[in-house]
Structures are given as C-alpha cells and as structure tokens.
C-alpha cells in the first residue's frame, strides 16, 4: 500500500526526458563500454605477451621452454622457465598453507568472539599490514627479519645437521638468511590480511537464522560456528584463499628482495631461489639480447596464464562450495 502511494506521487511530477529513457540509455552505454574495455585490456595484454614471447617459444618450443632448467644469458643463451615456475608454485603454495589457518582463526575471532572494539582494532591492524608497500616489507626483511631468522633458526639448524645428519645439508642449503624459507614466511605474512578480510566477509554473510537454528538445537558457540557458520561460508573462505594464492603468485618486490635470486635448479630449503615475477623485475630493465627479452616476456605470459587459471578456479570453487551449490535461492 505504502509502495503504491510513493510510486504514484513520483509519476505525477513532470520529469525531464533524461530521467525517463535517455538516462538509462546513456548509463547502459557507459557501463557496457567500461565492461568491454576490461575485456579488451586483458585481451591486449595477452596479445602483446604472446607476440613478444614468440621468438623464445619458437627457439625452444613451448614444452622445451616450460621444462628447460637452464637460464643462461651469458654464454649459451639458453632459457628455460622451469626453475621459476617451480619457485613460484612452491613459495605460493607453502605461503598459503602457512597463512590459511591463522588467517581463518583471526577472521572467526573478529567476527564471532571479539568484543566490538577489539575486533575493530584488530581488523584495522590487519588492513594496515595489507596497506604496507611490499618494497617496505622487503627492506624490513633484508635488514631485520632475514638476519634474525639466520641467527635464530637457520644457523642452529645448519650446525645441528652438519653434526648429526650431514646428508640433509644439500636439502637445507646455505643458511645465509636470504632464500626460499624467508621468502615463504614473508609471503605468508603478506597474504594473511587478504585471507582474513575475505573470510570475515564470508562469515558475516551467514544469515542470522542459521545461527539461531543451531543455537535452538542446543549447540554451544563453537558447535554453532563449526556446524552452521563455516559450512555456509566455505565457498567464500575458499575463494578468499585462492585469491590470496593469486596474490602470492604475483608478489614481486618483497620476494625479489628476499629470495636470494638464484637460477640454478633444483632449489634448497634455506638457500637462494627465484620466482617468475622476481626474474622479470630483476632482468627486464637491462636485458640487451633479443632472445633474453623474449624469454622474459614468455615468462610473463606463463605468469598471466597461471593467474588466469587461479582466478577461474576461484570463481568455480565459490559457486560449487557455496551452500546452495551455485543455485540462486
């Protein structure tokens, strides 16, 4: 009744043409143009990367490039992407594995347990970590974190291995502080805010009725979270984790500063390694040879494709795992 009254009173006023149909048309055009421009932009990036990487892919073959382990711009001019693909996937997967449970726990605490003021403070601090530029995290890593890790963990571990289990030494690698392990921990730190924020949003979207129903069945608070809240929000949580994974894959500066940048495959646990973004940021500026440049572009293309796949998986998982199984209610 109320609604009808309101609509009626608007219709009675004389309205200019822009509010009738022209406005809609203009808005539609603008929105469609903007939407298409995103698609075009992604297409243009793929086009340029494919074109520029053609020389390297022709020289080594797609499979040869993807599985090649030599990266030698000095003598042989052979370029293979496997060390960097492996470095990227290992660091990202492990960083996510380290970050996932703490991040979900923080999100549950903020959303369900913490008093409002405390939750507010924690939330803002988490956002603050996300806002710190990665180059700043990298500098902190070089001067504070890596030396501390070296003195506290790597050196004692290395010495223990040298005395008791010498066979472990090649696996552990040199305990300098700048290497794979440090990069993984820093990456985990950097993606925690993203997983936390997305998980908390997913938890907040759980309808009140779900919680009340669980409570009405006699569930304790933890049982309610376990049986009603998490199953309902698992799609959002998984999507958040996968998007954080995508962020870890693309993270460049902090990783390049801390991973030690060594192209010799295979890598060791504490020793220096390299990732796809780190080799691009390191070598692109001063790459003089055409084949070298083209190989770097090809690595960019691989990175593009991997990120695309990760995003598609995220979209699929969100749909599949949501409580309605992708059907709208």
């Amino acid at each position, binding site marked *: 009744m109320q609604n009808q009254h309101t609509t009626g009173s608007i219709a009675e006023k004389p309205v200019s043409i822009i509010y009738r149909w022209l406005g809609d048309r203009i808005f539609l055009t603008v929105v469609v143009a903007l939407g298409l421009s995103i698609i075009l932009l992604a297409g243009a*990036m793929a086009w*340029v*990367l494919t074109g520029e990487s053609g020389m390297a892919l022709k020289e080594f073959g797609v499979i040869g490039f993807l599985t090649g382990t*030599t*990266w*030698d*711009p*000095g*003598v042989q001019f052979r370029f293979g992407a496997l060390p960097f693909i492996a470095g990227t996937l290992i660091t990202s997967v492990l960083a996510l594995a380290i970050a996932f449970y703490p991040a979900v726990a923080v999100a549950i605490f903020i959303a369900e347990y913490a008093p409002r003021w405390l939750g507010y403070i924690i939330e803002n601090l988490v956002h603050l970590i*996300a806002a710190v530029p990665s180059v700043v995290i990298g*500098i902190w890593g*070089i*001067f504070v974190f*890596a*030396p501390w890790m*070296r003195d506290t963990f790597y050196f004692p571990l290395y010495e223990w291995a040298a005395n008791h289990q010498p066979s472990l030494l090649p696996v552990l690698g*040199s305990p*300098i*502080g*700048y*290497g794979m392990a440090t990069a993984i921990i820093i990456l985990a730190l950097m993606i925690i805010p*993203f997983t936390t*924020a*997305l998980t908390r*949003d997913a938890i907040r979207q759980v309808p009140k009725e779900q919680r009340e129903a669980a409570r009405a069945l006699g569930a304790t608070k933890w049982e309610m979270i376990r049986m009603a809240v998490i199953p309902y929000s698992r799609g959002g949580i998984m999507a958040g984790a996968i*998007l954080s994974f*995508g*962020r870890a894959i*693309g*993270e*460049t500066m902090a990783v*390049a*500063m801390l991973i*030690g*940048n*060594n*192209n*010799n495959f295979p890598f060791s646990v504490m020793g*220096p390694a*390299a990732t796809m*973004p*780190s080799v*691009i*940021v*390191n*070598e*692109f*500026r*001063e*790459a*003089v*040879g055409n084949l*070298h*440049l083209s190989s*770097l*572009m090809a690595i*960019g293309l691989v*990175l*593009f494709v991997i*990120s695309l796949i990760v995003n598609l998986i995220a979209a699929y998982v969100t749909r599949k795992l949501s409580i309605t199984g992708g059907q709208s209610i």
Partner: protein
Amino acid sequence: MKAITLFFVAGIMAVSFFGCGGGEGSRNGAETRSERSSGRIDILGAGASFPAPLITAMADEYRGVTNNRVTVNYQSIGSGGGIRQFVEQTIMFGMTEAFLSDEVMKDVESSTGGRAFNMPITLADVVATYNLPGIDKGLVFSADVLVDIYMGRITRWNDSAIADLNPGKNLPSLPITVVHRSDGSGTTNIWTSYFSRVSDEWRERVGFGTSVSWPVGIGGNGNEGVAGAVMNTPGAIGYNSLSYALLNDMAFGSVVNASGNIIEPSFEATTEAANIELPDDTRILFTNTPAEYGYPIAGFAWMLVYENLDNNNAISNRRQAEELVRFLIWSITEGQELSESLGYARLPGAAVERNIAMIGEVKWEGEMIGKELLQVVL
C-alpha cells in the same frame, strides 16, 4: 568492504602484470616535445641508470649555461631500453653501459646510411665490498682469488690464497657468503667481463653480460640490495660501484692489476685505467687494463648518437641537431667538472680525444655540423 578488498586484490594483480610491459612509456615523447620549439629546445635522451645522476646534474647545469634555452630530458630506463629506443629512433641520444654489438651497428648503418657513434661519457668502477669483523679496510684481492671465490672454490676467509696476499692480517675462519646483483646491471657487466678476461674457465662457463648464470651466491636487488646483504652477513663479499661503497662507508678491497701493482680503488685510478690506446670507435672493454697504475675493474658508459642526425626521426630540424652536438661537446669537456662531487671518475684525455674525432664527423643532410660547431665552441 568486500568489493573494496576485491578491487584492491585485482588492482595489485593488474599492477604486477603491467610491470612486465614497462619501459616503453615515452615512445612518442620526442616528437610532441620537439614540436613546440619556439626558441626553447628540448633534448631527449634515455638509457642506463648508472650514469643517470650525472646526466641529470649535467642537464641542470647546462640549462643554466644556456640561460634556460636548452633542456636536457634524460629518462633512466636501463641500458637495454636505451639501445632499443635509440634503434627505434624515439630519442635523440641513448645511453648504455654495454657498447652496441656489431649486429646493431650494421643494422644502424643500413637504416640510416651512417654509423652509430658510441661516445664514452663517464666511467664506471666496481669494487669488491666485504664484511669481515675486525678488518674494515685494506684487504687485497687478486684476479684469481676473486674468480675462485665467485666460482665457489675458495669458501673460507682464512684460505691460504687470501692469506698469502694479506700477510699480517688476522683472517677469521668464517665461511664466505658470495653476493651478486640479481637485477641486470652494467655493474655486473664490468665485474663479469673482468672475470672473463682473467679466467678462461669463467669465460667458457659463465661468460659476461648484464645478467649471467652465477655458479654460487645469493642475489641482491640493486646496489642497495647487495650492500644490505653484505652489511648484514658477517663473512659476505659483494660488489658495488665505488661511489656507492664510499657513500655507505662500506669496506672494500684493493686489487692486484695486470702489471702486478696493488691498486686501491679511487677515481684517479679509474681514469688512469681508461688512459690507454683506444680503438677509433671506443667500443672496448678495458677491464684488466694494461695501464700500469689503472684500477682493473672499470668500464665506460657510452652515449649513443647517429652519424647522420637528419636520419634520426626523433630530431626534426637542424637547430635541434646543433643543440644536441653543442651539449655533447659541453658534456665531455666542461661537464666533466661535475664528476668527482657526484661520485664519478673523469674521462681520460684519450677518450676525450676520440670523442672529439667522432663529433667532428656528425652530419646534418651531408653538412659537417659537428666540425663547424667544434671550431666555434672550442
């Protein structure tokens, strides 16, 4: 909130993609800038980042010298970018720490009907920086010792090879942590070209270039990355440009040169290293210099200019060409005064001589404008 966070994630991912394509931003800058040449002239150059502070200071100084008439706009985009933009003729001069290859020289000759000149503009020197508790200066290295360290064969500081060069120094039994540049850089080019000169094995296994496949060690990003890793790791050895090491109070070693003299790095020793018999086109790496008192790990940074300036699409009229030549002459003569205060070594007489000979051959539509201007200015 969710939307904002998602947007943030998307933005960061987008930035990491765009990062790959950088360095070509100013493709059409030269044309648009040069159109409005009503009295004022813009000279556009781009290239290596190592000489960028010097060129920027020269540009400031030169604007004062010409009463704001000539502005030199230098973009530090790296040697690779400098060479590419020079060949694509989007800039008036390029700047590089690796001279043009024969292949590129030939391409330029067939596309413009004239040569590409590589003119030395300043010198780069690379010193071995180290972190040894108790020994903050005066360590001596030889070519063989440095190569063996970077090959991973000498792994402790009290190795007899190092001890023999440093009698009386109390070398600790620390493991050596090798640090190198991870980003492509002219510094690496000079460092590895020195190793390739003194060791056949290095030349065949690793070679030289702005990036190489290092046998051992960790990579630091930029001068600051190497310095950070060296200063934070007891027992580390790395390499930095001399000016950076001086500025940050880092310990660096002297090197035994080809004539058997122990040379302490200094701007004079670097200048001395280049004061040798140079080829006419100055395309030479003089690491391991034959100069008796020259510091052996040094090299030129070159300015790239076409012989036939009228065939460079970035230069649209004769006035621009003349101002470019004037700037070239100024930068190798009076401009050199700025060197020491900024941490660069001065060009030696031999290089200035070669530069003047090359400038003398610069042409505009067949006219020898280089020769004319040299007579007017000098």
